[in-house]
């Protein structure tokens, strides 16, 4: 067992657990976006930041990847942590405003405006789908390609993958696409298509004007008529 202080409370947690696991086990909430039980930690979204150490040496680390250490002092909701999370959420809103997950988190953190250039990405590169596909489905059908601003998720050569199991797991875990399932008019939502139609690994050429990779997209089809 490792003894550490979380928000001033002295606690013991199992060895080899991360700060996120420790805090959640003890009931301190930490928001996450790119972390999911059953998948390895990746540390992409930084939403789970916590402050460790004291005084001038205090620093922000991502709790989902930081291991619990003996004697560590952790603050999960200090002013600095909250400021950092708000900034991260604002940036996420700037790139992916249609995500219900991100909207909910932003509203929970009291964000009322977004000061950056508005974009409409359909992916925040959290890598959940890639890990889902590799670690739970053992398929490795999709992965990261390119780098920098061209980084994207997809199949090699952008063609139908012959190792994809058509399980839909990648879409199930994606935090960026919830609103796709309602297109942009929630009252007309009728989907579920994601679970049984065509997953993203299918040839993408046909999908340029759709919100998601579904073919046919039920909601979009209705919208067109």
């Amino acid at each position, binding site marked *: 067992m490792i003894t550490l202080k979380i928000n001033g409370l002295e606690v013991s947690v199992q060895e080899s657990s991360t700060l996120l696991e420790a805090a959640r086990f003890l009931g301190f909430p930490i928001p996450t976006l790119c972390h999911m039980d059953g998948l390895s930690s990746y540390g992409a979204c930084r939403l789970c930041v916590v402050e460790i150490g004291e005084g001038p040496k205090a620093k922000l680390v991502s709790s989902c990847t930081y291991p619990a250490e003996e004697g560590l002092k952790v603050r999960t909701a200090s002013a600095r942590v909250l400021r950092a999370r708000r900034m991260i959420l604002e940036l996420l809103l700037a790139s992916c405003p249609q995500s219900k997950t991100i909207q909910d988190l932003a509203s929970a953190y009291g964000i009322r405006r977004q000061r950056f250039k508005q974009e409409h*990405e*359909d*992916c925040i590169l959290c890598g959940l789908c890639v890990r889902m596909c590799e670690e739970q489905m053992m398929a*490795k*059908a*999709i*992965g*990261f*390609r*390119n*780098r920098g601003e*061209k980084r*994207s998720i*997809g*199949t*090699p*050569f*952008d*063609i139908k993958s012959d*190792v994809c199991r058509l399980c839909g797991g990648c879409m199930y875990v994606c935090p960026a696409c919830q609103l796709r399932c309602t297109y942009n008019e929630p009252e007309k939502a009728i989907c579920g298509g994601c679970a049984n139609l065509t997953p993203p690994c299918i040839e*993408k*050429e046909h*999908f*340029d004007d759709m919100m998601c990779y579904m073919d046919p997209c039920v909601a979009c089809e209705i919208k067109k008529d």
Partner: protein
Amino acid sequence: MKQEAFASSSDRVEACEDVDVTNILRILDKHNEDRGGLIAILEEIQAEYGYLPEEALRIVSDRSRRSLVDVYGVATFYRSFSLKPRGKHLVCACLGTACHVRGAPRIAEELERQLGIKPGETTPDKEFTLETVNCLGACALGPVVVIDGHYFSKVKKSRISQLLDEARKGFDSAEIGKDKRIFPISVSCPHCNRSLMDETFVIDGYPSIKVNITHNHEEGWLRLSCLYGSYNTATELDIPGNTVVKFHCPHCGVEIPCTSDCSMCRAPMAPMLVDGGGVVRICSRRGCKNHMLDLV
């Protein structure tokens, strides 16, 4: 983001050259079982084909038990790898911060205008590929343009057409006569020992070396410059870049037996005897500029 994915998938159509499985396997064998060796493997394949053909990546993934996503991820991550065939000459304009403030964008625009292509593209005649980089580490000399490995500093717009012309001719040929590393040799067949020099055909102002070559069951003559360090050749056959040919002696007709492989592209190197002692080895791949002189 999706849009880009579409663009790249339509580009792939043109990228289907025949990839020789055994060739790729040989490269894989050299790096066998070493999982960290993926970059080295891809580098070698790129040296061979000039780019990374889709088929080659599939073979690498199949035979080395790496998943195709991983191989593709690495191949698209590094700027030095290209999944599209590239032109004969690679023009690279630096758009890094230092070059940028010294006017690199105008240089890049001028290159785009004169070549008629955008960065990342290849001219239809497959002569030039234009690329941009974000700093070449020669910031004080900016704007920097690199053409076929030759660095040009403080490039002005007015100099570009001349640079492209020189590139078309080949920088190496432009230097003949000025360079001490370039000197004439005369050679003979390693089998029958008869001279391969041909006074009737002059290249670079010297008698040329005459051999016969076969490619695709066609036979014809090839004349090489006898200047060590010059790459000028003439041939009656139409040989695409990157193909490996066989050399035959025009006197005894014997195929010149290749005893070693090119250190740059792994094609066989044909040895010829140098009068006065020694052997010169010439890479049998068209376009590969490797040759070696062992004087005895």
